[in-house]
C-alpha cells in the first residue's frame, strides 16, 4: 500500500465540510493495527512519500470522514487493495487511538 493519505493538507481542507460523523463500529482494532503497520506505515513515516501519520494525528471525526468520504483520494489504488472488512478494521484502530480518543495517557 502506498501513499495512504499522502497529502494531509488536501485532506484537512476536505474535512472542513460539515459531515455527520459516523463513529467506527464493529471493526477489529487489533487487526486494524496489524494491517496499518504492515501496509500503511511503509509510506507514512518520516522521509517517505506519505509523510508521518499516526492515529493520533487526527480526531475521531476526522478519521471517520476520511474513511467515509475521502477514501484516500490522493492515491485510490492504495485504498483498493483492501477489502471492506480490512478498511473497517483499520478505521476502528485509527478511531480508537485518535487524538481525542478515550485511550488514557499512561505512566512510563
Amino acid at each position, binding site marked *: 500500500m502506498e501513499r495512504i493519505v499522502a497529502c494531509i493538507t488536501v485532506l484537512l481542507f476536505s474535512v472542513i465540510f460539515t459531515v455527520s460523523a459516523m463513529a467506527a463500529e464493529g471493526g477489529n482494532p487489533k487487526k486494524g493495527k*496489524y494491517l496499518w503497520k504492515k501496509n500503511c506505515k511503509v509510506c507514512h513515516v518520516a522521509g517517505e512519500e506519505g509523510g508521518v501519520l499516526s492515529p493520533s494525528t487526527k480526531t475521531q471525526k476526522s478519521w471517520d470522514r476520511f474513511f467515509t468520504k475521502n477514501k484516500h483520494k490522493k492515491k485510490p489504488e492504495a485504498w483498493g487493495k483492501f477489502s471492506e472488512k480490512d478498511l473497517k478494521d483499520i478505521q476502528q484502530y485509527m478511531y480508537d487511538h485518535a487524538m481525542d480518543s478515550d485511550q488514557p*495517557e*499512561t505512566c512510563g
Partner: protein
Amino acid sequence: MSNLFWNSLSRRRFLGVTSLAIGAAALGTKAKVMEALASSVADGTAVQSIRNVFTSCGMCVNKCGVIARVRNGVIEKLDPNPHFIKSRGMLCARGNAGLDMVYSPDRLKYPLIRTGERGSGQFRRASWDEALDLVAKNLNELAEKYTRAGTMFVSTEGFQEHFFTTFAECYGSPNTLRHPTLCLSSNIQGFSATFGTNPTPDVLNADYILMSGANRSEALLTPDSIDMITGEGGKRKIVYLDPRFTKTAAKADEWYPIKPGTDMAFILGMIHVIVTESLYDKTWVETNTVGMEQLIPHIQPYTPEWAEAECEVPATDIRRIAREFAAAAPKAVYYQGRRSSFFDNDTQMRRAMAILNVLAANWDRPGGMVPNSKVKLEGHDYLAPWYEDVPERLEKGDVAYLSNKDGSWKYFRDRVLEGTPYPVKGMMIYKQNPLVSVPNRAKTLAMMEQMEFICTIDITMNDTAWYSDVVLPESTYLERDDPIESLGGILPVVTTRNAVIPAMYESKSNLWIMQQLAKRLSGEIFESFNFTMEEYRHHQLKGKPQIAEALELKGVYYPKTTPTYGKFDGKRLKTRSGKIEIYSAKYAKKGLDPLPVYTAPEEVPQGKFRLILGRNAYFTHGTTAHNALLDDIVAENTLWLNTREAKRMGLKHGQMVRVKSPLAEEQLRLQVTQKIRPDCVYLSHGYGVLNKKQQLLQGKGGSDAALVEDKVEPISGNVAMHQTFVEISAA
C-alpha cells in the same frame, strides 16, 4: 569512598578527562564516557583503573542523572550528575543506595526452576537454555490450550519494559497488566478529561500551591520535591491538606488535617467562592473553555460552610484560601500529585482539582498547569504477527475508560478468579511484584494458585518470584546498556543508561531474555527483536547527533533550560470540543457525572480506624525495601496511632500490635504520634513479606497488601486504598 576517589582524581583532572573522552567515545561502545588510569598513591605499584560513568538512576520512577565512580571494576559510589536539570543536580538517599542493588548477597544470580510446592521456596539452579526452553514450551502449550489471551503479562515502568510489552504483543496476548491502576490512573483520567492531557504543575514558578496528600518531601518526585521549597523571593505559599503531619506539612505554610476522602468538598467550596465572588478571568474562561454555564448553577450548593461540615477545614479558611488562590492566579496551582489510588471518587475529585485550576486561568502559563514537552526519538518499528481467534482484553467493558496497555488490576484479577469470559492460566511477570503491590493479597495468591505456569523476571527473590515456577535473573540498572529515554516535562530531557560494570553472575538484560524467548517461539516474532542494543540506540537517535553528543558530554540532553509557555494558545486540545472541558459531554454520554458531584465517604465505624498508606523518602514501594543501606535508616514499617487514642487504649509506643482488617491480621510495631488524626492509622507500604529469602525483611513490619480491601474507582479502574477500616489491639 568519594574521598579516596578524589585523592586520585581531582575535579580539574576529572573535567579534563571528560573533554578528552568526548572525542574518543562513541555511544554504545565500551568506552563509557570517561576513563582514566591513575597510579596508586598508597603503594606505588598497583595500577588502578578509575572510571566515571554517566548513567541514570533506577531506584524509582524519577531516573535522576548519576555519575557512577568505579575503581578496579567495583562501583564505589554513586553521585548526582550536576548537569541533570530534571533532578536539579541532586540524588536522594535511595539513589545513593543503588550500590546495594548490585552487591546484595541476596540478589538473584542464576535461572531457577521450582522443585517443591509453590511458595515452598524450593528451587534448583538451571542453565539459561533449560529455563528458557521451559518458558517457551509453556507459552506454546498455553496458547494451544487457552488461546494466546490465556497468558497475562505483568510489568511496570522501566527503560527495558518496552521489550516485555512488545514481546507480549508479538506473542499475541492482549492481556498486559501494568501499575497505573495501583497508582495514578484516576489522576490521569480526571485531568485528561478536562485538558485533554495530564499537565505538569509549574512548581518552580508558582506563587501559591495547594496540595492534597501529595507528600512531595517524602514521596519524592523530581523536580517538584526540590522546587517546592525554592519559590521566588519568598512569595511562595504552600497550603497542604493531609490527615498526617508529614515532612511536606512541616515545609508548608499551612497544614490542615483534612478528613480523609473529603478533599473534593474542600475544592468545591473553593470553587463556590471563586465563582460566586467572580474572582476568575471571565474573558479567558469564555474563550478557552466549555461548560462554565453548567458549572455556575452546579456549584451553588457547595458553600464553604457546607464544605466545612464535610472536610473539617473551617469555612473561614476555605474562603480566605480561595481568595488568596484567585489573587495569585495565574501563578497558582492546585497540585494534582501522582498516586491517586485513595478513594472510589478519585477521578471526579481530580476533575474538581482540574476545574479549580481552570478558574485560575493557569493553563500553559508560568506558575500554572503546563502541558508536557517531550523530545521525539525514533520509535521501535516492529510488526506483531496477527493471530486469529484471540479474544479481547479480559476485563474489557468493566471500566468506563480502560487503558488497553495498562488494564485494571482489580477487575482483571476478579475476572481471572471467576474464569470469565475465558480462562487465564499463564503469568509472565517483569519487574512488578503484585503480591506486595496489589490490595487483597489473598486474592492475588488465589489467582496465582490457579495458574498453570508462572515465570518472573526480576533482580531479587521477592514474594512474586517466590511463588513462581521459573525465575530469571535480570541484570540491575547499573550493569546494562539501556535504550535512550525521553522524559517529558516542562523542561524535557533525554537520558540513557550505560553499563557501569559488566553484568554479575549469570544475570542478563531483559532485552536479551526477550530475544532468547522470541527465538524459541518463532522466526516471525524474533524479527521484531533482531537487533543489538547499540543498533537500537543508534536508530532512536537517527538524525539527532546533538543528543548523542550531549549524552557523551554531560550524560543528559535538554533542548532548553527555560520553559516555553503558551505553545497551546489558539490550538486545538485533545478533548472532544478541542477546548478545556469544565463540563464533560463525553462523561454525560457515558452516564457519568459531567461535573464533579460530591459523595461523602463512609464514616469510620465505632472502635475502628481508617487505614491510610504512604511512604518515606528512603523507600520506593517493594522495590527498595530489601536494601541494606536503606535498611540502616528505616528497617521496618510501623503503625502510626494518635497519642490520644493510644492513651485511651492503653497502648505504648514501640510495642507490637495486631492490625485486623476484614481480610487479614498483621502484626507490627506501634508508633505513637500526634502527627495523625485520631480516626486514622497509617503504615508505609511494602513490608510484611511472605518469602524467606530476603533476609533483611524477615519478620519486619506488616503487609498493607494483606490488609487493604480491593475497593475500586470505576471510571479509571484505579484501586481505592484508603477505604479499609481496621481494629487495633495489643499483640
